[in-house]
Every structure is written in structure tokens, then in C-alpha cells.
């Protein structure tokens, strides 16, 4: 198995780290900045004797080296700066993504593509159009990250192990994401039975701004540990054909009443990419939030069309 990560910045490198630790696939890191991917790959390999890596890790500036990849992760692009909205990123990142997408289509025509570059839901659309890949093969990474943040905040509040908390966050990867509190539980017990509603509301609020909270603290960058770990989970689900039920941004054709748009919904992720999209019954409030979230993604897609 072979995984290519395009973009050797913080998110890309951290994703490579988490994937390498799983020992499930050879990894190629590609970055257009000469020396960046090569140096990080070399640094990883120097740790191999201690960390027992059984897989190869290569760094390169040459897209040709991604040939035959089973999964390609697109993280290339500029990161958000404090105060910057995800939409501000669009102009710069769509150019980078389109170029990468052409290379993916040419070098790894059978790959499942996991899009991480922000604004995620819009960039995923650009990648789908540029590659011409099947709808099930282009997937945006957002819901796993938003859910893991929500899970962590709930676990911290309850004083329980984060792995025992399950949560589902839908919608676009923006401030209007839709955490579904009725699909969130600890040890199987819905959080509505464990926390009062004002506490839940505050945890939902913190989840929505979880990315911005980190940007505000770091000042010169954005989060990369949790995003990297989220990417690795998705890569593993594809490589090992886990059929993992996760929220991810996928192209909708009428599901939840949306059409021709990438939006975060629950999907089964396996060897073929999106194996199935699940339609959950939503409350009126959740449906409205999802609609608002979809509207801001649509706005981004309209901007995309002008670029």
C-alpha cells in the first residue's frame, strides 16, 4: 500500500508521523519547496530504529513519485492566520489545489483523495472537478477533526477517558458546523443525561471555535496535531478497509436535501472511499443549522467559479 501526502507543512508532516506510527503503508511526502519534504522524511527515517517503522518514507519535490498511490492526502496551501476567515484562504489555496489535482489525476488515477486544504468544502469541489474522479473518491477531512475536538471537550468536562465519548459533527468545516448533541454519548449514555443543557451549549460553542482558539494561542500558525491525527484515522480506514462510520465532507446528490455541494455528513469509509452516505433524522434546529452551513459553502463555491 502507498500513501502520498502533498504538502510538507505542519499538518502534512504530522499526518505522515501518525500514519508512519501505524506501519500500514509506504509514504511519499511531496512539497514544491525544495528540501522541505526531503528533510522531514529524512528526520522521520532517523527515528525508524527507535520507533520500529517497517514502511518506507520518502520526501520529494517531484509529483511523479506519487505514481500508483492508493491514497493521496492534499494538505498543501497556506494556513490560516489570526483573524483570517477560512474563505480568505480560498484565492491562494484553490490555485495550489488545482495544480495538485491535475498531478493526482495523471499519476494516481485510482487513488482515494483526502482533502485537508482549507476552505475545505470548497477546495474539495475544486479537486473533484479538476480530477474528474468518481464522487466516492474525493473526501474532505473535517468532521473527524470537529468531532474529536467535541469528544475531547465532553470527556474533559465529565472526567472520563476521551475514547469512551462518541460524537457526530456535521455541516461545513466552519464556524457554522453542526454538532449533533442527540448523537453524542459517553459510554453509550446520551450526554443529555450526563450534562445540563447550558454546559452542552458551551461545549458546542467551544467546538465551533476550536480551530480559532488554537490559532489565537499560537499566533503564527494553526492546529496540526489533531488535524494530523484525524487524517491518519481516515487513511487507515481506507487502507485497512475498516468501513468506519465517520463524518466527512462529501459530494451530495440530494442527501439531506442538498445537491451539487460538499458538506459534512456521516459516511462509511472503506477501501473504495465513500462506501455509503447515511441519512440521519435531524431535528428542525439541526436542519436549519445545516442549511446555514450549506449556504456558506455555496457562497464559497460561487467565489470558486469566479477564480
Amino acid at each position, binding site marked *: 500500500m502507498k500513501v502520498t501526502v502533498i504538502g510538507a507543512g505542519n499538518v502534512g508532516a504530522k499526518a505522515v508521523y501518525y500514519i508512519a506510527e501505524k506501519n500500514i503503508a509506504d509514504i511519499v511526502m511531496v512539497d514544491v519547496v525544495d528540501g522541505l519534504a526531503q528533510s522531514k522524511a529524512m528526520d522521520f527515517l532517523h527515528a525508524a530504529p527507535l520507533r520500529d517503522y517497517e514502511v518506507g518514507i520518502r520526501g520529494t519535490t517531484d509529483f511523479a513519485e506519487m505514481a500508483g498511490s492508493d491514497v493521496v492526502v492534499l494538505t498543501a496551501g497556506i494556513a490560516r492566520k489570526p483573524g483570517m476567515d477560512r474563505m480568505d484562504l480560498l484565492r491562494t489555496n484553490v490555485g495550489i489545489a488545482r495544480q495538485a489535482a491535475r498531478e493526482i489525476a495523471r499519476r494516481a488515477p485510482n487513488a482515494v483523495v483526502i482533502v485537508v486544504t482549507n476552505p475545505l468544502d470548497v477546495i474539495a469541489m475544486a479537486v473533484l472537478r479538476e480530477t474528474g474522479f468518481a464522487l466516492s473518491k474525493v473526501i474532505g477531512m473535517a468532521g473527524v477533526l470537529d*468531532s474529536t475536538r467535541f469528544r475531547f471537550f465532553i470527556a474533559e468536562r465529565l*472526567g*472520563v*477517558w476521551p*475514547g*469512551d465519548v*462518541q*460524537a*457526530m459533527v456535521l455541516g461545513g468545516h466552519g464556524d457554522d458546523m453542526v454538532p*449533533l448533541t442527540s*448523537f*453524542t*454519548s*459517553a*459510554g*453509550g*449514555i*446520551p450526554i443529555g*443525561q*450526563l450534562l445540563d443543557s447550558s454546559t452542552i451549549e458551551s461545549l458546542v460553542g467551544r467546538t465551533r471555535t476550536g480551530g480559532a482558539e488554537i490559532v489565537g494561542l499560537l499566533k503564527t500558525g494553526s492546529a496540526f496535531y489533531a488535524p494530523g491525527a484525524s487524517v491518519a484515522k481516515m487513511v487507515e*480506514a481506507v487502507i485497512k478497509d*475498516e*468501513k*468506519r*462510520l*465517520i*463524518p466527512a465532507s462529501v459530494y451530495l446528490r440530494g442527501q439531506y436535501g442538498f445537491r451539487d455541494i460538499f458538506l459534512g455528513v*456521516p459516511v*462509511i469509509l472503506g477501501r473504495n472511499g465513500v462506501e455509503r452516505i*447515511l441519512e*440521519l*433524522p435531524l431535528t428542525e434546529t439541526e436542519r436549519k443549522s445545516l442549511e446555514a452551513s450549506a449556504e456558506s459553502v455555496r457562497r464559497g463555491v460561487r467565489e470558486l467559479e469566479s477564480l
Partner: protein
Amino acid sequence: MSRVSIIGSGNVGANAAFFIAEKGVTDVLLIDVKQGLSRGKALDIMEAAPIRRYRNSLVGSDTVADIQGSQMVVIAAGAIRSPGMRREDLYGENAPVIEALAPQVARLAPDSVVVMATEPVDSLTALFTLRSGMPRTRVLGLGGILDSMRLRALISRELDVSMEIVSALVIGRHSDDMVCLPRYCSVSGVPLPQLLPPERIAAVISETRSAGDLVVELAKRSSAYYAPSAAIAELADSVHMNLSRIFPVSLMLEGEYGLRDAALSVPAIVGEKGVTKILTPELTREEKEALAQSARLIASVVRGGAA
């Protein structure tokens, strides 16, 4: 390094030692009154250490007195079922073993967390708590955690999704009257009733109820021990690393759901001091009645045995 002592070096005890060694978080002392048995199994496991890279020590002993100072004591001593036997049929044979061990454990390892794995587990958890005088939060029976694991495995098979993302909750007695709670079972937060039609849920529950019996029927000369010992290792992890994981474990009830004088599995937060919090998810009247019925049976068995 902290230490877990396992009393009883049969299949459950020895495999619990093995799984705990694989996790590498604590030293293990394996004890059996049968001369040499524990020492032989401990040696066999440790001779794999260079390959499996165990960092902890695992030794065998023929003397219960060696449990002194253990942070956790697992009781896996006593007779097991043959095909056709019910777990309850073992009470007469195993109760004297537990009655003898209880005061010894209380004297030698008074601050330990005790995990009862000997069947019938709920009655013996109650008996041990009464005879040892140890607080109920530090005597945990291996019931619901195992039944929940089995239900998780079966749900995962039924839905063809990764086991890791399935959460399941089974409470009550570790017998055919266990109380499976499908609305508290979920996949990545999505409640089971939204993923599986009622008749399939009923089939999976029925299979869970008889899962232990099926293993005895098939294996003929042993009862289940891989899944039980894996559950013991999970508990050991949560105790030794103070993870505060949520597990349904059997413990003496003191008013939960209006019940007392019996041990039954309820979801609880488990850390280094044993149970730090008991959770009582909302139940229907039928579910509460089923619990009450099980509690009456256990209370009468334990009272009868004490007479």
C-alpha cells in the same frame, strides 16, 4: 511499577496475564494453589518477552500471601462450566473458594481494586464484598463489560463496520436475564435503532445473551477466556493508568434503581481507586423490573449460601 495479582492460573487468569503483559503498564503476579502451574505459565509468557518486548515483570507463585501490596487483585479461581451447565450451577462449588479468599485479600491488599471473574460473577461479587468488608467501589465483577464487548462485536458484524467505533451497553446480571440497552448502543454516536431494524436488533441481542453458552457448547472442555481476559486487561489499564473509562461492571447496589443487597452490572467510571462514579441511565419500567428480578435472585442465593 504497580502490580496486579491474578489468583487462578487457568485459561482466564493466564490469558489475562498475557494481555496485561502485552499492554506493558504493570507487573503481573500469577498465583495458583496448584504447585508449579503459575510459575510454569509465567515462565512461558516471559520467554516470549524478547520478541514481544515486554517491559514489565511477570512471575508465578503458589502462595496467595504473595499478593501483598498489589494495586489490583483479579480473582479467576474456581470451577468452570461444562456444556449444559448454567453459570449459577457453579455457586455451590465456587462460593467456598471466594469465602476463603475474601478475608485474605482484605488483609493482604486492603487498598487494592478487586476484579471478580469467577462464576456466577454477580453472586460472588456480592459474597466477596460482604465477606471482605472492602468498600463496594473496589470490588468489581466482570459482567456487563464482557456482555457489552460481545454485543459490540456482533453489532459490528451485523452492520459491517469497524468494531472500534461501536459502543454498546449491557447491564444487569451476567446471565440470560442480562439487560441489553439498544438505544444506548451507537456507532460513532449514531444510536443503533437508527441503523438496524428492530427484528435484527432483537436477533443480535438474543445472540449476545447466549454468547457465553455457545462458547462452552463448541469448546466442550473450556468456557470462554479470550474475551473475558481481554476485558480484565481493559479494566487493569483503566485502574493502573487512572483512565476513568466507562465500563458496566458488577458491584453491590446501594439504592441505584431502588435496588440493594445484590451486585449487578451498571455503567461506572473506573480509575485507580476503583469506581469513582456510578452512572444510572434512564430505564423503562420493564428494564427496571428485569433488574429488580435479577437482584432478587442474587440476594436470595447469597443469603442462602451464608446460612
